């Protein structure tokens, strides 16, 4: 989503956001009952199908503005926040949840 508002002739305000949710899973596997079972069984195969689960949510939000001093000189600033939430279980790479914040500001000159 991108929203822009020309507050005045010289000032434009901006707001943006995005969301990406990804999920993937296997159906539970119906394992056959073996003819013989061992006495000590600390591990079962009940959650075997969850090993390959994918469950990520990425959120991005940003605000910014452009101020035009004159037709060929402007100043813009933008601040954005990115966040990833990992609910897949972390079997292979661990918990990959993380976020970062970035702010950039600068001046544009046209000639």
């Amino acid at each position: 989503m991108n929203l822009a508002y020309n507050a005045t002739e010289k000032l434009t305000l901006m707001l943006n956001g995005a969301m990406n949710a990804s999920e993937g899973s296997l159906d539970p596997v119906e394992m056959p009952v073996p003819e013989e079972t061992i006495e000590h069984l600390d591990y079962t195969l009940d959650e075997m199908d969850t090993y390959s689960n994918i469950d990520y949510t990425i959120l991005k939000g940003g605000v910014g503005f452009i101020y035009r001093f004159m037709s060929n000189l402007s100043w813009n600033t933008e601040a954005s926040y990115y966040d990833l939430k990992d609910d897949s279980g972390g079997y292979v790479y661990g918990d990959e949840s993380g976020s970062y914040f970035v702010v950039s500001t600068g001046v544009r000159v046209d000639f």
Partner: protein
Amino acid sequence: MKRFMYAVKVAVVSFALASIVFCGNAGAAMDVSLWLGGQYTDYSDYGKKIGEFNDIYDDGYPKVNLDLFGTGENMYGDVDGYMHDFRTAGVDMKMRVANKFSGDIQVQMFRRQLPFNLYDDFNAREMTASGGAGGKMLSHEALDSIYDYHYDRYSTESEFEMLLAEKIGFKMIAAHQMIVAKGHEQKAAVTHCFSCHAQTRSAEKSLTTHTAKVGAEVTPIKPLTVGYDFSYRKFKSGADDVSFYYDPAKHPVHGGAAGEFGSRVLFADTYAAVGVYPETEKIGSKVKFLASGEKHALNGSFSYSRTENDLNNLHNVVLGGTMKFSTVLSPKVKLYANGTVTKIHSSDLYYDMPPWREGQQGGGQDIFNYYRASSLDRLYGKGTVRADMMVSQRAKLSLKAGYEHTRRYDYPEFDSETATNKYFGEGKLRYRKGLKYSLSAAYRLEVTEDPFTNYKGLFELVGRELLKPIGDAPLVYYYQREYIKYQTITTLPTIKHDIDLRGSYMVNQKVRLNAGLKMSMDENDDYDEITVEHSSFRPNLGVTVMPDPRWSLVTGYTYNYNKSTGPITVAMFDG
């Protein structure tokens, strides 16, 4: 890095020279847009996934964006450059001088983060009925503590064309590409002498690819143009090989029986290099032609390439040819016909294996030598015919039909062949009513005979009832399970349907909608007892709203659903 900076300097000097040409050219004009500023970044928790293509740092950096566009009499130049931090930068330069010279240079660099595989799932050991430790186990070990894996990628691409003799259209072409990846990555090795033990360690990554092309084109007699290209590519790793220690061969519980365990493995109590990159050179030649008239056009090419791995003398040869024909049958109907044929052959490799269980009771058989034929070996051909018809001023209909044949050599056995035939048909209708609305609908049907199938067998019968020791061997061994495998399997379909619907609608001068739906369904109907199906469903919706000159809103939603059904197999030890 030095070579990359050299390329950047060449590019900057080239542009400076071009600027001088522009400035000296009567009627020259240049527009420059320069953005100068800075950026601050702050990461929290695990940054490698969310910042996969970023340099992860909590600091501020200068930032630059530069756009230059210059025009002169019969010429123009364009430069777009950016630098977001000291590892993310790029520049794209173009220059055109009438029809006599064109040059393109692209330079890019970025950092890519790599994850660290924990191998935490390698953590189990069987327990005997008496409660003691059994022999079957999974374990893991990271030889380096958690390492920050990433690599920096630098690339330069340049292509130049120069018209040397306008009367006969004689043109020279030169192009070069360089890609460098430098950093560190995680390498793993699994020893399976007496236990399944995974080890990982860090390894330097230093890969370089150079590709160069020179060519020429000439129009000896109109409307025929012929050309020739020669290309060379070199890929090499500059990093030292990484070695892992393979466990000594012995019983996993009591540590004895070294002779028996050692007789079944190739590496024991030794170091071996793992994950060695090849060093390849590829040489290619292509002859091409183009003949175009007012209503017809025919173009084609014939190519040959040979790729060799300098580390082991294996090679791969590809012969290919393409032909494209188009004709205007009437003011409302155009016809296109394309064909391509490719033949690929890679070196066969003979594995001379040691005798099986040499020196042990019932052992010494020389039964595992074999020829490994490359799965790339094949003859491939494809032909398509398409007709585009203007049904009316607003509607366009496109119909396409095609055939694809793949003949694989030396599969499933050496000196045998398998063939796959695919037939497809496609129809697409587009309707547009000015700027008010547009619709398009497309349907594609694919029918495949004998899709690629794994003949090894996915399942195994119960071995205890069928397998017996061979000769005077004391036990049944794992390799004997190859004889009780069954069920050839493929996950490829024999029939596939694709639907693609799109539309856009201008509600009024302030609101515009666009929507689409892509669906795909396929199945393999060769199997009676096994289900092989895939389906996907992808709708999307977009809205643009501009209620007045001050406000604008662009928003959209995309959903992607994929489902696959197929057989799986799980290992169940029965002894």
